[in-house]
């Protein structure tokens, strides 16, 4: 990548959201509305530049923005447009700094597009990276917070012009709680901007290259479909992931605990996996994959369900009996696998105290390509 990075074109938006949906590991929200919003901005002449983490000087400031709220509200009362942008400006004002670039909290799902949209309004570049390398349900689950990014000042903004600034927040869990409550009061859709981080810090803590990776995955799926090549094989090649199961869903069980839809999908093996049975624990995202009772892939590594024929990522809410899927395991970035990170995003943090995280190996090339 050149120091100036590259401009995102309208033709990139579909592959980007497809790749982001895949990295959403079954959750992360639908990027469709965000994709349309980004498309409108590009069509009206806004430039969206993606730059490498090495481009800016150490003392430059970076803003992290993302949407917060309920996905089902987001498809009905979608954004005025400037929510994340206004939140980001409020953080700048409260902190007395100017941002030089924006970065995504999570590349998985709809939040892949929020910094892109805010950056288009601000005339700022977007860093090629994010704070998860996937999707997770809560604000504190980013590498930025895990490694000690400041929790204040942060700000949340709604479509009406309300902006709430959090000047003093003692830790990331409190920020999650305050932001969630404010978002609900705002009508359950809002833009959240976290405290400014220095480029030096972001370079050390961000999962690098993930915008480009989402793009690459999306292009790979679309190209493979067009050329009638095996989509799953091509995705494995480009992600460095492994095929952990191929099967047909024989049961999906859901229950609601603590505001989250949790459950399990049961799969019966086909092809090379005939005779085996798999189980996937789901919250918003896919959490753990067991094959014949053995845990094979678990958070924070990525468990990705793809339609066996089309390679389309399948989100957890549309899982149902009879779907034929390939279950891929993708190695998460090392920053997500440290002791510190596992406390926040490991299996224990998601309610599996009996599981000790065992990382999967990258079976092919590094995901950074």
């Amino acid at each position: 990548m050149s120091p100036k990075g590259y401009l995102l074109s309208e033709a990139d938006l579909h592959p980007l959201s497809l790749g982001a949906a895949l990295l959403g590991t079954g959750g992360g929200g639908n990027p469709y509305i965000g994709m349309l919003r980004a498309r409108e901005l590009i069509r009206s002449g806004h430039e969206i530049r993606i730059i490498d983490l090495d481009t800016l000087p150490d003392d430059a400031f970076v803003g992290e923005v993302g949407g917060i709220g309920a996905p089902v509200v987001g498809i009905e009362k979608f954004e005025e447009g400037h929510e994340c942008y206004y939140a980001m400006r409020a953080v700048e004002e409260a902190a007395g700094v100017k941002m030089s670039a924006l970065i995504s909290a999570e590349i998985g799902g709809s939040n892949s597009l929020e910094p892109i949209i805010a950056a288009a309004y601000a005339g700022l570049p977007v860093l090629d990276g994010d704070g998860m390398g996937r999707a997770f349900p809560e604000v504190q689950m980013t590498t930025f917070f895990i490694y000690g990014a400041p929790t204040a000042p942060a700000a949340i903004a709604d479509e009406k012009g309300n902006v709430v600034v959090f000047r003093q927040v003692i830790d990331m869990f409190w920020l999650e709680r305050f932001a969630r409550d404010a978002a609900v009061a705002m009508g359950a859709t809002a833009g959240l901007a976290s405290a400014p981080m220095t480029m030096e810090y972001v370079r050390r803590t961000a999962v690098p290259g993930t915008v480009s990776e989402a793009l690459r995955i999306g292009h790979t799926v679309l190209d493979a479909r067009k050329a009638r090549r095996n989509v799953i094989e091509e995705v494995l090649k480009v992600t460095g992931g492994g095929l952990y199961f191929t099967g047909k869903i024989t049961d999906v069980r859901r229950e609601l605990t603590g505001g989250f839809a949790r459950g399990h999908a049961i799969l019966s093996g086909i092809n090379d996996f005939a005779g085996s049975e798999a189980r996937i624990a789901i919250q918003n995202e896919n959490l753990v994959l067991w094959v014949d009772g053995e845990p094979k892939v678990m958070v924070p590594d990525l468990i990705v369900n793809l339609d066996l024929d089309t390679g389309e990522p399948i989100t957890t809410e549309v899982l149902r009996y009879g779907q034929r899927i390939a279950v891929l395991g993708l190695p998460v970035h090392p920053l997500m696998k440290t002791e510190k990170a596992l406390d926040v995003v490991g299996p224990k943090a998601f309610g599996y105290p009996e599981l000790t995280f065992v990382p999967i190996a990258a079976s092919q090339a590094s995901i950074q390509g």
Partner: protein
Amino acid sequence: MIRIGIDVGGTNTDAVVMDGARVLAGVKAATTADVMTGVVNALADVLKASGKAAADIDVVMIGTTHFTNAVVQRRDLAKTAAVRLGLPATASLPPMVDWPADLREAIGNLSYLAHGGNEFDGRKISPLDEAELIGIAEDIKAKGVNTIAITSVFSPVSDECEKQAAAIFEKAIPGAHITLSSEIGRIGLLERENAAIMNACLRDLSQQVIEAFRGAITSAGIKGKFFLTQNDGTLMEAAFAEKFPVLTFASGPTNSMRGAAFLSGVKDAIVVDIGGTTSDVGSLHKGFPRQATVAVEVGGVRTNFRMPDVFSIGLGGGSHVVETDMGVKVGPTSVGYRIVTEALIFGGKTLTTSDVVVAAGKYDLGDRSKVAHLPQALITATEARIAAMLEDCVERSRLSPDPLPVIVVGGGSILVDKPIAGLELIKPDHFAVANAVGAAIAQVSGEVDRVYALAEIGRDAALADAKAQAIEAAVNAGASRDSIEIVDVEDVPLAYLPGNATRVRVKAVGELHVA
């Protein structure tokens, strides 16, 4: 009650006469370019075959793909103004933002954003601004447009804003055709708005088409009431259908599936409707088609209608059979309605699936001597290929491990004579006109889809309220109250929302009330 069911498809217009639950007669007539002639012919033929007089007929039910085709072909669409209430929310994407440009242009590409709308919990986003709406009305009027689609944020939760805005527009543009999104779609603003706009632009056409159907029925001497079937397999009165033509989208596959359930007496099954070119496969649950969970596109526009979850494969009675190096290939190309001249058994030159079935001695159709030369190996390989194609799509349609039976209907049912995927096979009488039967037996429904705060009213009270609303909606749509059953209840807790916010959908269905 004596009723006639008609299914106006792209190729055939099928009609049946039913006396209660008994099918007295079923006929197929060619669909004509003007549609009406085909309906008149089908009515005459079916009355004659049934031995009933026109005066005996109590009701006529029509299923039609006419409005779907109008959108797909971009013809006969009215210039329409799309008005959305929700500012400052939703300003980032204007109405029709993801429509194909030619369709948007075909209806005048006229859209407005105004204040109004509700939050998920019923709070106001911003108050309605009467002066703003009067200004919009004047602009619409000045552009010579009198068809308007109004969509308000969270109108499935509260339709007050849409109704107030409609009153303002009616006053400003007397006689305007107004469609409210809350009367059509469910949560999902862009998709519901799309549906409302499509409905609005079909209003002029629906008036003409329904008037013409009315004419065909009257000219046949029938004095009974007349209804159209909607995409969920239930009925709407002609006058209602005139206002909501969009609700007829996808009624075709629904009618075949409902007809299959009725003719076989089986309410939970996989249905395979085999036509000349394609087979539509879907699953029946309590006698109704399972609905799609994802957005469905019509004419390139995403909508969130209640559409059956049906998928098609290129296998029908007219599918080409070709020997290749890779084995026998069946479909997706087809001779379609030209089967009567092009298939070998009818003296044509194209080898079709029907030819193979006749050669195998499985069915008597056309001139069997014309396929006597087909080698047994080819027949065996083709039958195996057809079986594999059907097995694959039946497997995909199964929603549970329960061994459901498979009901086969449609003119192409002759292709099947053995169990598919090891499941019991049912080929009911009158299978070729199952879609017309589905239209004839259609019931009346009412549906509610809204978000309740269970922390406030509790789950039982919320469900009871939703059921009561669904029953009222069914009565308003013409169902007789004592026959109403709740056929579907779904409550989905919404992640990240307080007060146990839960989206509840309830559907009530009843028999048509004929006074």
